[in-house]
């Protein structure tokens, strides 16, 4: 197993739903992504791993339209698309749970769950969309449905301000926001970082449920146990470049850790 090609999953890999190639991103002098390829198919969980600063979050933000890349191509079901704004990504059915959650602490749970896609009351057509009355009851209904689906039992009211919630509750809300929307791709950036054992379980269950409902799921984590439990494939990034992609069933945690920290170049991998 010396060439990178062999590490690719090969002919039996499912046809990708979302595929990007040659993604470049620079932050001033930092070359954060150096031509990264990435893909995820429907009905699979693709784990994205790499050391701190490998570029995982940057890649996700680009896919979510929160950052604009400096070069690269995007394909959905093999037809080229452009993702320049969060609206583009949402319209393509891409949803994300950010590593920093991106919640507004001054707003309540219901408002956060529909942030940027607030339902407005029907009628009022003479007003521009931004000035029509908010349907805040509909917001609450949707919020309750999303929270119930996640089975967040510790959250009693969708009218509580997010600023007063615990880290785990906030994370649950960020996840509910992503999976509550109509979407085909869900990307979770370290969604269990602040969670207890039971809540981590719930998130992993959510991820599995998303896979079972034919979503394409991207799962970022530093926890190898979780990754091996939930993922179908594992994509390793190192210093802003691809190392390789493995089928989870055909690799081991040790192999992945070595790939993350040392890459494949120095041959350690061959011993695996």
């Amino acid at each position: 197993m010396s060439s990178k090609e062999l590490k690719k999953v090969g002919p039996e890999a499912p046809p990708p739903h979302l595929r990007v190639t040659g993604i470049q991103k620079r932050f001033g002098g930092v070359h954060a992504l150096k031509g990264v390829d990435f893909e995820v198919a429907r009905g699979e969980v693709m784990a994205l791993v790499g050391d701190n600063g490998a570029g995982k979050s940057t890649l996700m933000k680009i896919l979510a339209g929160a950052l604009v890349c400096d070069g690269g191509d995007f394909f959905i079901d093999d037809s080229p698309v452009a993702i320049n704004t969060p609206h583009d990504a949402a319209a393509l059915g891409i949803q994300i749970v950010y590593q920093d959650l991106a919640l507004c602490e001054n707003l309540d749970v219901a408002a956060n769950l529909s942030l940027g896609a607030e339902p407005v009351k029907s009628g009022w057509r003479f007003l521009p969309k931004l000035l029509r009355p908010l349907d805040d009851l509909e917001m609450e209904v949707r919020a309750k449905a999303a929270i119930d689906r996640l089975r967040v039992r510790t959250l009693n009211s969708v009218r509580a301000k997010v600023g007063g919630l615990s880290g785990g509750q906030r994370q649950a809300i960020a996840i509910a926001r992503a999976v509550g929307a109509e979407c085909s791709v869900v990307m979770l950036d370290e969604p269990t970082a602040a969670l207890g054992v039971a809540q981590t379980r719930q998130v992993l269950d959510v991820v599995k449920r998303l896979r079972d409902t034919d979503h394409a799921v991207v799962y970022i984590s530093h926890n190898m146990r979780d990754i091996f439990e939930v993922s179908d494939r594992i994509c390793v990034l190192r210093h802003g470049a691809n190392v390789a992609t493995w089928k989870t069933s055909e690799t081991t945690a040790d192999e992945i850790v070595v790939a993350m920290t040392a890459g494949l170049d120095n041959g350690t991998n061959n011993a695996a």
Partner: protein
Amino acid sequence: MQPEVSSSPIDRLRKLRESSLGSFVPVLLALAAIWLYFGLALPLWEYWTDPDATGLRFIFLSPRNIYNLFMQSAVIATLAVGITVVLLLGEIDLSAAATAGVCAALLGVLVLAGVPGWAACLLVMAAGVVLGLAQGLLIAYVGIPSFVVTLAGLLGYQGLMQKILPTGNLNIGDPFVRAIARILIPDIWGLLLAGLLVLAMAALALRRQAERKARGLELETATTLWGQVAFFAIIVFTAVLTMNAYRSVPLLIVLLAGVTAIIGWVTTSTPFGRSIFAVGGNAESARRVGMDVKRIRAVAFGIVGLLAAIGGIFGASRYGSVSYTAFAGGSLLLESIGAAVIGGTSLFGGRGSVWNAILGALVIGSLGNGLDLTGASAADKLMFSGAILLLAVAIDALSRPAGTSAR
């Protein structure tokens, strides 16, 4: 959310400020304290200590004084409502009073040149939007901090006002402009209007409650529901009855309430308003969910410009003249920013309400009025206002949720 047991005074303060009615409480308490002091404590004190006092004289709480108080606070309140909108974004506008001055001067010049009053008012409001939007565009799209841009605006617009009014003073006799402050709503209509408002509010609250029930959402407790209606009714009726007791409700006050209602509705009940709160709370999150943060910032400054223009019109109408000191050169700016902050709108963005700005303006107005009545010097007034402002900002800082200070 588990019911939390921790209840240090600061925690309780925070809780209080989070609830919808609760945000009114500190400013109402401040208002009550000031009114009790000037209205009851001082007259009683004088009565007891002064042997030749003929009787108790409650000048401050007399309907006549309260009426004047409302009129005096109206211009501050209008500007404070506008400033609240940018404070919600976490920005500041130092140029609002100067903008109001330019607009009032322009109004004077226009009506003098024979432009009909209503057309002049519309033109001036458009000018206000342009003056505000110009700053907003610089802040949002060029990325200069609002403090700097509006400081430049303050200086520039002060100069502009002097250019428009070389003499520094201009009388306005136009009947349309004067009518805004002169027209009184007949007593009975004022009461009728108040009654209708309260009924409408109660009906809306009940309908909402019914919808909540129908959709299986958590219900408001009866106390909150009727508390809100009663609170609203008490405020509206006391205001109307007091003003009726002296004269009647002036059109100016009705217009101010109307403008505030519109801005209040936009900020709390529309997607645009929601995005203002979102940007004020976490601009990066707002950007990531696809909100056009730059446009929101620019438009907010346009709104301040519009309200500054309206404030300018109100002022010109009330004084019957435009003078440099009444607007750009005077204390109007600091009083209106103070009013917004005393009302409980956070300087850190994301929390506050335009209705509170009106109460804040009343606090500032009452303080000035009360000190005037007791014959305090201008120096005393300034120092008192400073102390109250400091107190308000301290309450804001203490009641901010922990951990957000880094923003």
